[in-house]
């Protein structure tokens, strides 16, 4: 098999014009140091051709370096989601689509990267990606992607606002403990400076599993007693 020249995706049109664009090779130069080949995947001779029982000529196949592709299991899952139940997919079709995905990512990224350079920015943003997609003919992806991104951002903001709330307000939402808990010293509890002091047993109740600083505090994010009603000293009178 002839060796294909290794190129990166920096200039699609130039390489396409040169006619020797080979996109699978973007990752092959960065192989593990232990690999003694020049960068091509290791050839492995297999038995008869797997897809053509009428033509049992042995041919070489190559071990593919997997970390330049998205995992094939994920690809298969997405494909099967939209295919009817009786549909089957050949292994090389799966691999081809896997390669197409990597090529797509590289292609869009290179155009987005160029845009960033032109605008003297260092970070590729989702807007750059959407712009590149529109430029390259994927306008029909823009709307679902924008919806997806907005939904993600909303959820992200919601999550961040719960975590970033001052501890005082979080204490207000705390649900009263069910039984009067014995007052125990709290040497191991992290000190948090806040107005309403919550006793350690109450803290355990409040946080549920663990008291991690950035842990999820979703358990009591619902409505709770207001500041006027909350009296941390009620049980201790």
């Amino acid at each position, binding site marked *: 098999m002839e060796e294909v020249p290794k190129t*990166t*995706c*920096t200039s699609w049109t130039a390489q*396409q014009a040169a006619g020797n664009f080979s*996109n*699978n090779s*973007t*990752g092959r130069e960065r192989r593990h140091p232990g690999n003694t080949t020049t960068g091509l995947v290791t050839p492995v001779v297999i038995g008869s*051709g797997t897809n053509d029982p009428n*033509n049992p000529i042995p*041919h070489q196949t190559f071990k593919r370096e997997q*970390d*330049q592709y*998205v*995992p094939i299991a*994920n*690809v298969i899952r*997405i*494909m099967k*989601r*939209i*295919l009817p139940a*009786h*549909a*089957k*997919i*050949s292994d*090389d*079709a799966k*691999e*081809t*689509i896997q390669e*197409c*995905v990597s*090529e*797509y*990512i*590289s*292609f869009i*990224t*290179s155009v987005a*990267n160029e845009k960033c*350079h032109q605008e003297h920015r260092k*970070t*590729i*943003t*989702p807007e*750059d*990606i959407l712009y590149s997609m529109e430029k390259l003919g*994927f306008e029909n*992806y823009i709307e679902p*992607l924008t919806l997806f*991104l907005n*939904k*993600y951002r909303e*959820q*992200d903001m919601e*999550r*961040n606002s719960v975590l970033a709330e001052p501890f005082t307000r979080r204490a207000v939402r705390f649900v009263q403990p069910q039984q009067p808990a014995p007052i125990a010293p709290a040497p191991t509890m992290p000190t948090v400076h806040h107005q309403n002091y919550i006793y350690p047993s109450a803290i355990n109740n409040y946080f549920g599993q663990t008291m991690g600083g*950035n842990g999820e505090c979703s358990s009591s994010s619902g409505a709770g007693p207001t500041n006027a009603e909350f009296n941390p000293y009620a049980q201790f009178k």
Partner: protein
Amino acid sequence: MKRAGTYSGILSGGISGRTGPHLLPLARIKKIMKKSSDDVKMISGEAPIVFSKACELLIEEITKRAWNITVQGKRRTICKEDVASAVITTDTFDFLVNLVLDSANSQDSPRP
């Protein structure tokens, strides 16, 4: 990136899936993005997330088109040639043409 741990939280599918499960691993997408050219410097945290959805759409579109070709040929197994035909007949997939033809040329047994 808003805070440390945001990105890795997404990777591990943590924060109890509030961001929604991503079908493709974000770290891998980011790796592929970085490999696309040497001068890719920084990538926003949301960029791989957009790509995870975009790649899903791409896979779905290629699969649907390939399946149509499979069905036309009265078969039930999508083969590489169906994928190649789907790519060739779609204008927006021009950038993939070399890829599908390349793999078809290099791996097919020579026909008698």
